[in-house]
């Protein structure tokens, strides 16, 4: 195997995994922008999406229907989390809501354990067939689905935020909640919308990666953490930043595992995160984490 082919393989793997991290990271950013809450149940949305997708397929639904159903159900779960957990304490400090989301993540994981048990579930790829060759790298077909879903979601969100009234309203709440309220935007509605949206995003990520990683009740924790790192890499308030952060993290993991040593894969990713954060604190980067707006 030539070095170029190896490099292509690392890049391909990194892009696919990075697409997943980006989708999860986006969920964090959308909630954080509007509510200033870090939603630690984001990883559990991914897990729910994956397991619901598996269940939908086992019940005989076609892939598209199972996908839409999983996304819709988890969006409702996200909305419920906002109504039941976050809304009642919306005037408390953001840390209180953060604790609520940690509690919610444990509750969701426990419920999934009770419903689905501890076994991992396999799921057929969306389109069957052997892996495709790209520049000497072999990429599983589901990898293209991951990238396609990520691209569709990014495009959809871009249209939503820049071309629709509701999207502009969400952005307004992110930029200046008081100003938005004075303009007649119902900020509380936007909170609900943000949570539902992040639920749907997480579910989409989970549903599309289930054929690659299998679905288990405890998959959310690690994926949520990686998504959070992606969001922080991108500055936590910027959707574009989260997307870039996700791909950066995926590529870093893959390249360090391939070119350095697989034993230090996670260490490399986290060291880069720390260095970037330090660089931001020192003012060496053009963007800032969680910039107050």
């Amino acid at each position, binding site marked *: 195997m030539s070095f170029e082919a190896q490099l292509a393989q690392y890049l391909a*793997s990194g892009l696919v995994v990075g697409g997943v991290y980006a989708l999860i990271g986006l969920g964090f950013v959308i909630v954080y922008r509007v509510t200033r809450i870090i939603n630690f149940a984001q990883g559990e949305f991914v897990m729910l999406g994956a397991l619901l997708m598996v269940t939908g397929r086992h019940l005989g639904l076609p892939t598209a229907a199972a996908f839409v159903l999983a996304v819709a159900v988890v969006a409702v779960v996200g909305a419920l989390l906002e109504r039941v957990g976050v809304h009642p304490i919306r005037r408390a400090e953001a840390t209180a809501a953060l604790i609520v989301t940690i509690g919610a993540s444990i509750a969701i994981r426990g419920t999934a354990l009770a419903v689905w048990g501890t*076994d991992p579930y396999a799921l057929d790829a969306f389109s069957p067939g*052997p892996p495709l060759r790209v520049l000497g790298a072999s990429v599983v077909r589901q990898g293209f689905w991951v990238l396609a879903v990520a691209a569709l979601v990014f495009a959809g969100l871009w249209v939503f935020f820049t071309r629709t009234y509701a999207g502009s309203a969400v952005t307004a709440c992110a930029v200046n909640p008081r100003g938005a309220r004075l303009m007649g935007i119902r900020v509380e509605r936007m909170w609900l919308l943000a949570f539902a949206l992040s639920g749907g995003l997480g579910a989409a990520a989970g549903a599309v990666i289930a054929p690659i990683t299998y679905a288990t009740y405890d998959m959310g924790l690690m994926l949520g953490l990686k998504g959070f790192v992606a969001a922080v890499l991108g500055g936590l308030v910027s959707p574009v930043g989260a997307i870039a952060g996700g791909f950066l993290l995926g590529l870093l993991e893959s390249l360090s595992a391939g070119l350095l040593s697989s034993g230090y894969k996670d260490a490399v990713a986290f060291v880069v995160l720390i260095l970037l954060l330090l660089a931001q604190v020192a003012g060496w980067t053009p963007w800032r984490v969680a910039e107050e707006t």
Partner: protein
Amino acid sequence: MRIVGRMIVAVTLALWTLTWGAVPGGAQEPYKIGAIFSITGPGSSLGIPERDTALMLEAEVNAKGGVKGPDGKLHPVKLVIYDDASDETKAVLTAKKLIDEDRVTAIVGTTLSGTSLAILDTVQKAEVPLVSCAAAIKIVEPAAERKWIFKTPQSDQLIVGVLVDHLKARGLTRVAWLNVDYAFGQLGWIEFEKAAQKAGLTIVANEKFGQKDVDMTPQLTRVKAASPQATVIWSIPPSASIATKNYADLGVAGPLFQSHGVGNKRYVELAGPASNGVLFPAGKLLVAEQLADTDPQKPVLLAYARDFEAKYGPRNTFGGHAWDAIQLVLRAMEKAGPDRAKVRSAIEGTRNFVGITGVFDFSVTDHNGLDRRAVTMTQIVEGQWRQAK
């Protein structure tokens, strides 16, 4: 008033028979055995069949009235089973609970090497016999320092030895190695490196991956670039299954070998067609029907497989580890009763015990009691287990 008086007498009598009256003629004091399995968490594909087997054995023994102790009377068996969630800290806490609160005579488990190593100190200090269901040889060696500890699965040393001999016999001398980066995988690597060196194999790649990683393609790309004649992956599902799929998708040449950690149908289900042709060293349970009729284990294996599959679905070697561990404790209690020190001596004195994992011969210096007869190379062919030559 007389009626009330009679009623009081009747109620008192009834209560007396229900409580104290039961003792002389009825059941004896139960024999309590503790069990710690990884029923949830990453080790659950191993821990759940272990728990199922334990419950099956408990019901089976109690249906016969229990265990006949040294006092000549039948004692019902009570298993106290806890879940350590595949977590070292929780394993230590549950071990303490079994020793101090439940006051069990012996403990069976844990499921994983890491959790077993974690509870060693607690168990040794409390002087309670432990029969582990985990792989690492370090759990029971050196035996002089592990007086109270036994284990039933084949040690990684034994398993790796059979694998390395197989590789050498087939002339597969350039070997790539990948392992999951926790106790099971790391200890497997230590044994493999030693055995491979001794056998004159060349290790052309040595890679690690995380238990919850979603993609092992980068590591396998390095493996592919090293162009090995054979690749060994040391892990358990689901990560073992993901790695198997990645291996097939990348089209790495040469046969793929796995550890005994993939000895369940879950591995095949998750890896799908990519598992076709995979070879791994394991106990004989998976290929029980294909064994020679002269094999002393064959009847025991067939009986266990029949009972287990009637209740819980496809057999796997992990349930067998629990079967052996509990049987060892029960046999020891037949001789020694509920006395921890005597039970320990009785387990150490067990000879020629035909179990699921192998034929056990324990001694003061060997707390695993197995030899190479307990391992056979197994191949997955179209989703079925075949004994490989």
